[in-house]
């Protein structure tokens, strides 16, 4: 039962940063074909040139399982205010520690889909 800890269910049922961002300057979409999950990320990145580029604000939307949605909710909370270079260094390990659980192979892709979408958005910025 420890996969569905209270905190995961809480983020699933009451996702943080869910919706759209009017001031977004970059968006991305990722789809997990095998389970029909879809996530859209919208980010407002501030700073350019020599000033550090940071994630000023972020939203996500789409549909997915509890692990997928909780991961998106927790990740968007974590990356807000972070330097984009640091966000690019985040890995599955960081996602697992946010979720507070280790995932079985079949659930790993659910958990990393939001991270992949965020990093894809940042890459498209360059």
């Amino acid at each position, binding site marked *: 039962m420890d996969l*569905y800890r209270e905190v995961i269910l809480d983020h699933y049922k009451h996702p943080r940063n869910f919706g759209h961002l009017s001031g977004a300057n970059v968006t991305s979409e990722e789809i997990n*074909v095998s*389970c*029909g999950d879809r996530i859209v990320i919208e980010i407002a990145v501030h700073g350019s040139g020599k000033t550090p580029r940071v994630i000023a604000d972020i939203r996500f939307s789409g549909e997915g*399982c509890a692990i997928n949605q909780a991961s998106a909710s927790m990740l968007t909370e974590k990356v807000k205010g972070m330097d984009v270079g640091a966000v690019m260094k985040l890995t599955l390990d960081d996602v697992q520690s946010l979720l507070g659980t280790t995932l079985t192979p079949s659930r790993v892709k*659910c958990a990393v889909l939001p991270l992949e979408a965020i990093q894809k958005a940042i890459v498209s910025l360059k």
Partner: protein
Amino acid sequence: MFDAQSIQKDFPQLRRNIHGKRIVYLDSTATSLKPTAVIRKEDDYYKRYTANVFRGIYTTSEEATAEYERARALTAAFIHAGSPEEIVFTRNTSESINLVAYSLLTHDLSPGDHIVTTIMEHHSNFVPWQQLGAERNIAVDIWGITPQGTLNFADLEKLVTRKTKLLAVTAASNVLGTINPVSKIVRAVKQLNPKCFVLVDAAQAVPHMPVDVAEWGADFVAFSSHKMLGPTGIGVLWGTQDVLDTLHPFLFGGEMISEVHVDRTVFKSAPHKFEAGTPHIAGVIGFGAAVEYLSALGMQHVRDHEEKLVSYAMKQFDRMGGVTYLGPNDARIRGGVFALQVKGAHPHDIAQLLNEDNVFVRAGNHCAMPLHESLGVPSTARASFYVYTTEKDIDALIVSLQKVKNMFG
């Protein structure tokens, strides 16, 4: 007397405990469990008479060839084929369908021809036609369904024309559970265009109900061993002798030739011209044992058993509430397949929670994305039944679904 509880004893995997609890296997639509008779038969080939088929004149090779061809004869009898030569062994249903797509249609298409398939197909009976259509620039039209999840007969007249080369249809849906009236479909198609080929994907029909290919009247029927108690890696394509004779081989190589010269090759006759290379000998022989096992049970008994389970399951889902399933609610036209939805719960989470109770179901779109898209449902959690499924298994499913409801509802 058909007794699923005692049938379970023939399946070693059902004796396995995980975390101290028994397994409730509800994913037979993906692949079935294997009885001891099949495992032993395959094992026997590896232990006692491993040899290639059709080429040795020594004892074990002759034994292997005889067992391989016996499996073909058993398969032919099982589906009431005209002769064993009408049975082609492939790797799986997908390969059987691809064989028809490549062998028949790439050599025999004229401008303006088109193909018809249905919205309820598994990808294996959808993507080959879609890709062929794109490559050869021919239209592929989609036959739709009614809100009840049955093929919409009113549309057939508009879809099948003088230019329809082939209609591809499933005998039973792996998502909706719908059992299609194949004989009626074939009759209607042939009336509209006698030259139109009909290919039936019977992957979910041959394992679960009596099938008589002569009565169906189609040109091709495809199915897989692994969904009917046999080994993985074996598929079947049935076609009438005269149609198979006119088809070009799709794979070239060893075994499928009678003469090879530097400048030309003479192919064997069907079915051997379609079985290039050393086949999965052990798999075919094991499949023969699966056919014998099912024949001994009696396919009408298998169907009656599953129809009873379908009625029982529908009653339990209705009683429980908050759980819905796709497809018709009439057990008479429904196979033992339920693509379930629980309000507030994603199918992945349903399958994961059920797994904690050793109730094994599949989550996703079940290789039927066009169907899920047309229904506006991203994915479902699918429970499916077979000869070893009992009402007790369905009760276990209900208990676990209740936990899902409590957590997410």
